Structure formats: structure tokens, C-alpha cells
């Protein structure tokens, strides 16, 4: 698609995506951005070629030759081959969400198709958590027009992909397909004038730093623990 993102994953994040070495949550949010961003699609192809050269390089034999793969070949060649890519059929990416019909990147449509449970948070924010692995907290966030998230900082890093609408914080204004990275040292207060649907991946819980919002902290840790506990079952 032709949407031009202004904010992209870091080289390290995109490299991890190409190599397959990041968490499922991070893979999903990067995949969604890459689908929307021509520039990152091109970079991913180059990074995959680099990763292939690095990961599949000839290695000196580090284990005994005795590892016997001969039986494997015989069983494999008995299997039928695929003549068409079943994947190529267009999956449904238009989904109904919070009274709106929105078009999502394929991987997020898949995530959302499992069914989302929306919760109302303070400040005009709606949130639907999804569990993708045991190291990240992932959620769809919908900020109503005019809403504001309480000032917070992160213990880990937070990645937010804008899916629809826009939001702003001290450092910029973010629109559809923008990939916003915040690290532990950043403190910020996102707000949305026109309303905004995002997908966010946190690799550890938020800490609120101001006023009554601080009361939310134990609750957030609890929620994070629950999300990660759910993943290990």
C-alpha cells in the first residue's frame, strides 16, 4: 500500500523480525507495519538475505556425522507437493470493532478474529488485551477523540503502531502506519484530538508517575502478570 510512514522500526527491531529472533508480540506488530510500509518491506528482503547468509553459512562439523538423516529423505519424498499457495487467497481484513468497520493488516486481523474483549480505562481509552507470548503485553487501544493517557514512563520498551486516526505526544504527531518506539527513559503523555486506533506491544508494565494515576500502578502490574500467566498455560 502507498501509505507513507514517517516512523519506522529500528534497524535492530527489523533485523530481529527478519531473523526470527524477537518475541511473537514484537513479530506481530512489526509484521503489521511492514505490510503497510513499502520502505520496510524492501529493507526486510535485504535483511532476510543477510540473515540467510549468516544463519545458513557453512559450518565446520561440530557434531558427529553419525546424526542419521537418511530415513528422513525417504519419508519426505513420499509426501505430495503443493501446486498452489493456499496462503494466496485474500483473508478477510475488514473487521467490526467498537461500532466501526476497520481494515487491519492481515496479521492483526487474524489476532482480532479470535474475538476481542474491550475494557474502558480512564481518560476515554478503550483497551482490548491479547496474549501472544509470555514476555510481552499486547493490546489494541482505542483513544476516543479528545482523549489523553495519564503521564507515564516505561520499565521496558513500548511499541505503538497507528492503525487509524492519529495521536500526538511531546515528540511528534503519529498517523496511520507510523511505528512509535518508546524506551524505559522516555516519559510521555499521548493525546488524540481526532481519535486513534493503535496496536501496542509492551515488554514490561507501565508505571504512572503523576497524581491519582499512580493508584493504577498495582493494578497494571497485576494485569501484566495475568496476561503473562495466561500465556504459560
Amino acid at each position, binding site marked *: 500500500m502507498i501509505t507513507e510512514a514517517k516512523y519506522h522500526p529500528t534497524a535492530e527491531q527489523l533485523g530481529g523480525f527478519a531473523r526470527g529472533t524477537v518475541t511473537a508480540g514484537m513479530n506481530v506488530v512489526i509484521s503489521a507495519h511492514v505490510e503497510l510500509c513499502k520502505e520496510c518491506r524492501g529493507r526486510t528482503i*535485504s535483511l532476510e538475505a543477510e540473515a540467510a547468509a549468516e544463519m545458513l553459512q557453512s559450518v565446520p562439523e561440530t*557434531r558427529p556425522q553419525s546424526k542419521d538423516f537418511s530415513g528422513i529423505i525417504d519419508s519426505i519424498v513420499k509426501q505430495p507437493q503443493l501446486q498452489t499457495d493456499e496462503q494466496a487467497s485474500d483473508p478477510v481484513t475488514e473487521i467490526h470493532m467498537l461500532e466501526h468497520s476497520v481494515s487491519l493488516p492481515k*496479521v492483526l486481523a487474524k489476532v482480532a478474529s479470535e474475538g476481542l474483549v474491550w475494557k474502558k480505562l480512564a481518560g476515554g481509552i478503550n483497551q482490548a488485551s491479547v496474549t501472544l507470548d509470555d514476555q510481552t503485553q499486547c493490546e489494541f487501544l482505542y483513544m476516543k477523540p479528545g482523549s489523553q493517557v495519564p503521564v507515564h514512563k516505561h520499565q521496558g520498551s513500548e511499541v505503538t503502531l497507528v492503525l487509524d486516526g492519529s495521536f500526538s505526544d511531546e515528540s511528534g504527531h503519529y498517523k496511520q502506519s507510523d511505528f512509535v518506539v518508546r524506551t524505559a527513559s522516555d516519559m510521555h503523555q499521548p493525546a488524540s484530538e481526532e481519535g486513534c486506533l493503535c496496536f501496542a506491544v509492551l515488554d514490561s508494565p507501565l508505571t504512572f508517575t503523576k497524581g491519582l494515576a499512580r493508584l493504577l500502578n498495582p493494578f497494571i502490574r497485576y494485569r501484566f502478570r495475568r496476561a503473562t500467566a495466561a500465556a504459560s498455560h
Partner: protein
Amino acid sequence: MSSAAKKDMPAVAPRTSAATAAARDPDSDESLLIAIGNHQDRTAFNALFTRFSNKIYAMGMKLTRNDQLSHDLVQEAMLTVWQKAPLYDLDRGTAQSWIFTLTRNRCFDILRKMKRQPATVSADDIWPQEGDGDSQLVHEEVGTMEVEVTKIESFYGDLPAAQRAVIEQIYIHDRTHEEAAAVLDIPLGTLKSRLRLGVGKLRQMVGAEQ
């Protein structure tokens, strides 16, 4: 081309041309893969297996640090290579890159199963195969693009007028979805679905022609 010479090629070389050059050598990975895909060539599969099984095992050890899982990975990755070989073509890059992506994807699924993580998304959702996505049709490297463009042009006229108008705005005038919807005076959702239908049809027609 020998595999030693291939290594010296810059990784960022247009993937089609690198693969095409390699395919002229009947003993290249690419030629073997095409033989496997075209006529279930078991000798070629044996040769490819010998070349890649140890490399895949080593990649498995890097990613999983587990001997049994790495062994499983060799089996599953090479099974996928066999099954999908008919879908490989030079547009998909070098055989090494293609086999790497299949292996990475199988490894992701194996690890998730092992860690009992939710099966909400699989590797194929995260890294869609090429052939998906409108982008492949128009943003491909120059070599294939010329061929595709002439073909597409001949099919383009057969599309319903509404879909043709949308594709013209997006791919010829290079407008954003929002701009195109405004120009055509249709809702954004309508534009996106017409675009998807039109591009899907074009892709089908181009595919059927090959």
C-alpha cells in the same frame, strides 16, 4: 556459478538477478530447487538435502540451543522445501534466502509449540509468502517488473470500470488511499475493497498466463 563466488555477491543485490544468474549453473541450489519443483527430482532433493541439512541443524542450534528441536527442524524445514518447491521461482530470490525463510518460519512454530504459547498466530501469518499483498505486483525489482507491466497492461482493460479507476488512481497516479477516495468521491472502505478485488483479479490473470 560456484557457491564460493555467490558468497561474494552483495546481500542487497536485486534478488531476482542474483537468483537468475545462479540458475544458469545446473548444479546451483536454484537449479536443484527448480528440478525438485518441476519434476519431483529425487536426486536433486538428495543433493539439496546434503547441502542444507547441516546448515539448518546449525541454525536450529543457534535459535533453540536444543539438539532434538534442531533435528526436528531439519526434518520439518526440508519437508517444507519439498512440498513448496513447485511454488519457488527466481522472483523469490536465491534458494538460500528462500530456504532460510522457510526454516525460520518452521522454527518459530516449533518453538511456540514447545513453549505451549497461544496458537493465535502462526509463522505464516507473521511472514506472509510473497504473492500475497498488492506490493508484489508493482514494487518488484526492475527485471521482473517490465515483464509484469506489459502483461498487466494487456489484462488491465478487462477489469470492471470501477476497479480499473481505483487501480489507476493508486498505481498510476500514485495517490494515497485517502486521496484516491476523495478524487473518485467514494468511501475509503469501498475504495479498499475495489482495490483488493482488482489487484486480486490482475494477479490471477498474470498467474494464469505463466
